[in-house]
């Protein structure tokens, strides 16, 4: 996944999980769980969508990489 694709995937996943959030307000360092108020189920769905989009296995141990849009994009684009 290119960084652009990753960014796009993250925005789309957030739009589904937290439709009330304005993506424009999102900074690269917004904490997704605390900042956007995603609960554990929301977050799981977020991970699920990203995993589907990227075709990448995302283990529980990888969750910390998905804490912010910037770190998530890096994680999805990397490896």
């Amino acid at each position, binding site marked *: 996944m290119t960084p652009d694709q990753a960014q796009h995937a993250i925005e789309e996943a957030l739009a589904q999980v*937290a*439709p*009330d959030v304005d993506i424009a307000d999102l900074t690269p360092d917004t904490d997704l*769980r*605390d900042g956007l*108020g*995603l*609960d*554990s*189920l*929301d977050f*799981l*769905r977020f*991970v*699920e969508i990203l*995993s589907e989009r990227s075709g990448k296995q*995302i*283990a*529980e141990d990888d969750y910390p990489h998905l804490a912010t849009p910037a770190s998530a994009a890096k994680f999805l684009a990397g490896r």
Partner: protein
Amino acid sequence: MPALGADMDEGTVLEWLVKPGDEVHKGDIIAVIDTAKSAIDVESFFTGTVERLVTDVGQTVPVGTVLATITESRAQPAAPPAEPKGPERPTAPQPPGPPAGLEVPERPRPATLRKREKKIVAAEQAPPAVTISPLIRKRAHELGVDLAKLRGSGRGGAVTRADVERAAAERQREVALKPPSPAVSRIRVTPLARRVAAELGVDLAGVTGTGPGGAVSEADVRRAAALVPEAAPAPEAAPAPEAAQRPAAAAAARSGVERALSMRQAIGRLMARSKREIPHYYVSNTVDMTRSLDWLHERNRELEVSERLVPAALLLKAAALAARKIPDLNGYWLDDQFSPADAVHLGLVISLRGGGLLTPAIHDAADLRLAELMSRMRDLVIRARAGRLRGSELTDATITVTNLGDQGVESVFGVIYPPQVALAGFGKVTERPVAVGGLIGVRPVVVTTLAADHRASDAMTGARYLTEISDLLQRPEEL
């Protein structure tokens, strides 16, 4: 209009999913109702044929109002003993004539108003050729029989007293969502059952008695309450009759602002009632989550994201199992006494993005495998936020759980949802120094709390409940 939760006193029909003549089964979704808190899919309480849609799309009506009439299938064992049926009893479609008059006697009402309104009956709708004596009219009024539909068997087609009484008996078979109240006087009901029915908002006309001679017992009422539970609670919630017919501007769900306001008001009324009536006591405990989380982590490692469990699933399952083990906390406080529930339907506090909350129930949560509980939980959250919950999900909870762990707080002491008697709370799982075997270690812990109704139980019982949860969480593989 069923009470979709103890905090609801009126609702708006957003959409009908059935029309007259349609066959419906118990549990089928037949309408979408907008309440103060959310749009809700309402299920049929009966199997039969839709006779008439009484409440129009866009109408806002109080709880208890007849939404539609459904003729129950003959196959239903619930049907009262057979009675010779008039050969040409007119049913749907409605005969022409002012339908407004017809609807009046069926309009539901707060119990206190029933007597007064009973006299408004559509007697003048009788075909002009038929003679009906004032006495018969009076009897028909008492029984709530619509004379316009009667075929007289007396001389010259005159309607006799026997005709009226036969019709009244037949009418019992035509069970409406909320059947007309005049029939109540004819049903034998034990005093306790009557009180419980009043508390639960169960219309006795819709209850099938299984007691001696078909009398309605308390158990019958409670069974029926499982279908239409927790109706309009306190008298102050009883809607004014003139509010009954307020036409909504359009059959649209409320706007965001209106929704936020009505949501706060509904929550406010119910919570104020809870704090006014329920003497809460509180207990709390700190539970070592090491085993549970290790087990969970190990299990999730092998699974696709969609099949993974979150810690909340374990907490909910433990809360449900403990509720089954400590039945004094699982049920309702009604009529000055505790009435245990025979299943554990776990109410789940779901906060809505944008404010407010809903508390749908996971049915039989104690019997569900973890994976199943997890998928129900996910499904409920999605549907709660999309406004697609079912009525039964909002009315059946026997104990409620609030899990604020995701919001970062350590503990939450909740307010009980009347008429339930307990609410369990879970905080955030955090790492804390814990002394184990004389040594200090860092372990993940969660603070569990219980708010319980002191009328129904004592703190000793609450303590046993939390201890049980703690024990269960030490054996996650058995959850």
